[in-house]
C-alpha cells in the first residue's frame, strides 16, 4: 500500500426487519464484482429480534480491514434508538445523511454533526412498487451514488433472492430501479472509486476464516458450546467438517468441550474448540491439563467486551491477560493473534501446526471486530502443507517413554492403536514413563522440558509482521493492527515514517527477535484495545523496551480508527520537537 487509500464509508441503519444489513451485504458484493475492496461491520442492539441494526460499510480501491474515522454517508430507514448508534457513526459537515421525512425528526445527536441532509421519500418510492421494500430502493440509490454499474447490482439482487421466488425478485428489481434513477440533490464528498486490479475476490468473515484455517491446518474434531461472538466459527465448521471425515459436537458446556477436544487429540485427531471470554475462563483448568499432559489442541477465542458477561456483541482486546497468564502453575503454552480478517486463516492454520509440533495447547486470540466483520479480499495465498503430528512407533529393545526427556523438549507421542507404545497420559507430575511422581527431580525435568520445547523451537519469520522503518515505532497486536497500518500509510503520505511491529506470536515471547527489531527505535507507541493496558504490561514483563514508551490503550466497544492513531503520533512528534 503506497498511496493514500480512496475509500467511501457508508452506514445503513434501521430497526429490525428493515433490511439494512442486506443492503450492506449487497454493496459489498458489488464492490467485489467491480474490482474494488470492502469491509463491513454490523452493529446490533440488545433486542434479539426486531431491534435496530446497522451495516457499517467501507468500500475502497485497496484492501481495507478497519473503519475510517468518519462516515461519508448515513442512510437511515428510521431513527428508532439512533442514540445507541450515534457514537459508532461519526459524521461531520462533509457527510451526507439520506433520510425519509416520513420517518420523523432527525435526532439531536445526529443533527449536531452538521452533516448535509438529503430528504428522499423512501417509503413512498417503495410502496409504489407492489411488495416493494425501502432497502432495495436504498441499494439503487447507493449504487448510483457510488457510480457502480446497475447490471452488477441487479445480478446480485437476483441471485441473492433466488430462494424467495420470481415475484420477490421482480419487486426488488423495480425498487432498485426507482432508487437508481432517483436524482439525488448531492453527491459523495470524495472522488469516485476507481476499479483496482481485476481478479477473483473472496468475501469472508474472520470467524469463517478461522474455521477455514483450522481445517487447512488439519483440524478434524471440534467440540464447543455456543457463545457470542464465536458461534459463527462453529456454524461455519459444523456442516463442513463432516464432509472431510471430521466431527463437530455441541457439548453440554465449555468444561465438556475443552476436555472432549483433549480426549480426541489424545486419540490422534487434530482438535479444537472455540469460545469467548466467559467460556475461556471455564476452560482454564482443561487447557492446563493439556499443557501438563502435553496434548496439542487449539482454542479460538473470539474476544468480546469484558469483564464477565460484559458486552457480548462488541469487540475488545481484553482477553490477552487470561490467554497469556490464565493457567495455574507454570504452564507454558502458545498464544497467537491474527492481524486482520484474512490473517485469521493463516494464523489459525499456523496455530494448529505449532500446537501439533509442540504438543501443547495454542490459544488463538481473535475478536468480535475481526470475527463478525466481512471483507472483500484477493484470493489468499495457497497454504503451507499441514504439518503432520509426529507419531511415535515402537522401537526395538526400547521401552516406550511418553514423557521422555529429550534435547528438543519434544517427547515421542504415541496414539492409541499403536502396539507396544501404550501409556497413561497424566496431569499429575510424572516420570518420563508417565507414572505419577512428586519427586523434585522429576518435577524439574518435566518443567524444564515443557519450557524447553517452546524456547528451542524455530518459529521463523511469522512471529510478527514488520512494516516500514523509523526511530518511532508503533507496536501492536491482533485486530488493532489494521488501524495502525492505515495510520502509518497516512503518515507516510505526509512524509512521516514510522515502523510498525505487529506481534502474531504472543507466547512464547520472542525476546531476541523483538529486541533486534527495536534497535534504532528510540520512541515506542503501544497500541491496544484494552482498559488496563494489558499488552503494554505484557511487553514490559518480557522485553526490554526503549526508554520512551507511550501507550494508546482504549477499551471497546468503539473500533480503533486510523485517525486516532495518527493523532497520537502527531502528539508524540510535537512533544519530540
Amino acid at each position, binding site marked *: 500500500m503506497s498511496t493514500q487509500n480512496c475509500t467511501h464509508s457508508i452506514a445503513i441503519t434501521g430497526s429490525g426487519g428493515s433490511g439494512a444489513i442486506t443492503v450492506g451485504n449487497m454493496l459489498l458484493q458489488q464492490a467485489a464484482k467491480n474490482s474494488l475492496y470492502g469491509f463491513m461491520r454490523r452493529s446490533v442492539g440488545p433486542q434479539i429480534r426486531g431491534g435496530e441494526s446497522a451495516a457499517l460499510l467501507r468500500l475502497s480501491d485497496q484492501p481495507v480491514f478497519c473503519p475510517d474515522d468518519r462516515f461519508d454517508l448515513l442512510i437511515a430507514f428510521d431513527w428508532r434508538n439512533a442514540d445507541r448508534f450515534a457514537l459508532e457513526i461519526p459524521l461531520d459537515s462533509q457527510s451526507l445523511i439520506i433520510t425519509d421525512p416520513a420517518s420523523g425528526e432527525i435526532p439531536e445527536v445526529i443533527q449536531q454533526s452538521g452533516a448535509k441532509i438529503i430528504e428522499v421519500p423512501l417509503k413512498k418510492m417503495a410502496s409504489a412498487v407492489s411488495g416493494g421494500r425501502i432497502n432495495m430502493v436504498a441499494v439503487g440509490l447507493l449504487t448510483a451514488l457510488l457510480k457502480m454499474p446497475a447490471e452488477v447490482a441487479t445480478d446480485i439482487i437476483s441471485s441473492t433472492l433466488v430462494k424467495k421466488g420470481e415475484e420477490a425478485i421482480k419487486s426488488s428489481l423495480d425498487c432498485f430501479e426507482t432508487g437508481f434513477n432517483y436524482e439525488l440533490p448531492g453527491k459523495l464528498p470524495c472522488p469516485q472509486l476507481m476499479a483496482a486490479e481485476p481478479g477473483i475476490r473472496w468475501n469472508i468473515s474472520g470467524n469463517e476464516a478461522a474455521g477455514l484455517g483450522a481445517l487447512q491446518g488439519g483440524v478434524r474434531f471440534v467440540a464447543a458450546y455456543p457463545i457470542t461472538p464465536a458461534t459463527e466459527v462453529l456454524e461455519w465448521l459444523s456442516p463442513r467438517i463432516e464432509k472431510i471425515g471430521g466431527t463437530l459436537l455441541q*457439548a453440554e458446556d465449555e468444561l465438556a468441550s475443552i476436555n472432549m477436544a483433549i480426549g480426541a487429540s489424545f486419540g490422534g*485427531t487434530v*482438535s479444537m474448540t472455540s469460545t469467548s471470554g466467559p467460556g475461556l475462563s471455564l476452560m482454564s483448568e*482443561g487447557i492446563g491439563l493439556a499443557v501438563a499432559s502435553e496434548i496439542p489442541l487449539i482454542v479460538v477465542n473470539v474476544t468480546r467486551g469484558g469483564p464477565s458477561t460484559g458486552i457480548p456483541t462488541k469487540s475488545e482486546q481484553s482477553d490477552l491477560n487470561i490467554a497469556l497468564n490464565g493457567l495455574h502453575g507454570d504452564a507454558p503454552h502458545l498464544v497467537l493473534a491474527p492481524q486482520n480478517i484474512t490473517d485469521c486463516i493463516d494464523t489459525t492454520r499456523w496455530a494448529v501446526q505449532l500446537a501439533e509440533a509442540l504438543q501443547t495447547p495454542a490459544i488463538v486470540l481473535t475478536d468480535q471486530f475481526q470475527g463478525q466483520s466481512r471483507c472483500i479480499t484477493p484470493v489468499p495465498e495457497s497454504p503451507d502443507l499441514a504439518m503432520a503430528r509426529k507419531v511415535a512407533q515402537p522401537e526395538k529393545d526400547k521401552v516406550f517413554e511418553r514423557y521422555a526427556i529429550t534435547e528438543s523438549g519434544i517427547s515421542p507421542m504415541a496414539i*492409541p492403536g499403536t502396539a507396544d507404545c*501404550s501409556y*497413561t*497420559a497424566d496431569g499429575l507430575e510424572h516420570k518420563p514413563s508417565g507414572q505419577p511422581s512428586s519427586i523434585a527431580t522429576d518435577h524439574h525435568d518435566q518443567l524444564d522440558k515443557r519450557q524447553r520445547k517452546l524456547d528451542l523451537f524455530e518459529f521463523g519469520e511469522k512471529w510478527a509482521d514488520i512494516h516500514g522503518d523509523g526511530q518511532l515505532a508503533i507496536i501492536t497486536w491482533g485486530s488493532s493492527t489494521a488501524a495502525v497500518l492505515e495510520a502509518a500509510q497516512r503518515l507516510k503520505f505526509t512524509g512521516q515514517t514510522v515502523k510498525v511491529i505487529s506481534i502474531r506470536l504472543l507466547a512464547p515471547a520472542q525476546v531476541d527477535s523483538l529486541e533486534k527489531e527495536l534497535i534504532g527505535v528510540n520512541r515506542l507507541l503501544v497500541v491496544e484495545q484494552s482498559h488496563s493496558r494489558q499488552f503494554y504490561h505484557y511487553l514490559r514483563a518480557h522485553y526490554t523496551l526503549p526508554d520512551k514508551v507511550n501507550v494508546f490503550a482504549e477499551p471497546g466497544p468503539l473500533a480503533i480508527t486510523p485517525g486516532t492513531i495518527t493523532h497520537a503520533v502527531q502528539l508524540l512528534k510535537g512533544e519530540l520537537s
Partner: protein
Amino acid sequence: MTNLAKAKSYKSDIKPIWCPGCGDFAVLSALTKAFAFLDLAKQDLAVISGIGCSSRLPAYFSSYGFHGIHGRALPIASGLKLARPELTVIASGGDGDGFSIGGNHFIHACRRNLDMTYIVMDNEVYGMTKGQASPTTQPDWASSKLTPHGTGVRPFQPAAIALASGASFIARAFSGDPNGMTKLIIAAIQHPGFSFIQVLSPCPTFRPEQKLWKHQVEAFPHEPTDDPVKAATRLYTDDGMSSGLIFQSNYPTWNKPEVAQTSVKQFEEEFVV
C-alpha cells in the same frame, strides 16, 4: 496362556497406591478378567479417569489410559470415542468425581449414549481428600469435619439418575463379588451404547463400617428390564444395596452422520464472490 495369566497381562507394573483392603483392587482385577474374556487388544483399549483414589486406575493397566482432571473423565472419554470409534473406551472414577463435580457430564453422557462403559467406584466418600461426604453419602454420616452434623441431604441415586437421563445400560456391582462384577463388565462392554456400572467399592480407611457391605449386598430380585417404568419402580423401592443388571435397552447411539465427502479446497471456493 491360561485366562488368569492373560488377565494379568493387562496389568502394568505400577503398584497401586490404594490402602490395603480398598475395594478398588477388585475392580482393577475384574476389568482385566473382562478384557481377557473379550480378548481385547491392549493397544485398542483406553481407560480414562478423573481424579480420586479410584481414578488412579488407568496407570495400573498396560493399555492406553488418561488420568485427567477431577470430574472430567466422561468428556475426555467421549472426545476419544468420537474421534476413534473403533477403540474400546472405559471411563472410570469415584462417586465424588462422577456425581459431584462431574454430575453434569454424567447426565449428558447418559443421554448421548456413545458406545462406551462408565464404571463408578462408589464408596460414598471422598477418599483421596481424606474423607468428606460425597453425593451418595447418607445424610447422617457425621465423620467429616466439613459436615459435622452430617450433610442433611438425601443421597444421590446414581441408577435412578442414569435412568431418568436416558442411559441404555444400568447395573450395580459389588467389589465383594468379583465374579459377578466381571460378568457385568463384560456385558457392559458388549452393550452397544453407554453402559453405566455403579460399583459398591468399600473404603475401609474412611468408611470402616462398609466392611459390613458383604453381609448387606444381595442380588437384584428381578430380571433386567427394558421398560423404564418398571426400572424406575424397582429403583425407587430398592435400598441401593442390590447388585446386578437393572436396565438394558436398545436406544439409538450417537452416530456420525453419513455424508458425501469432499475437500477443504471445495470450501475455499465458496468464498469466491
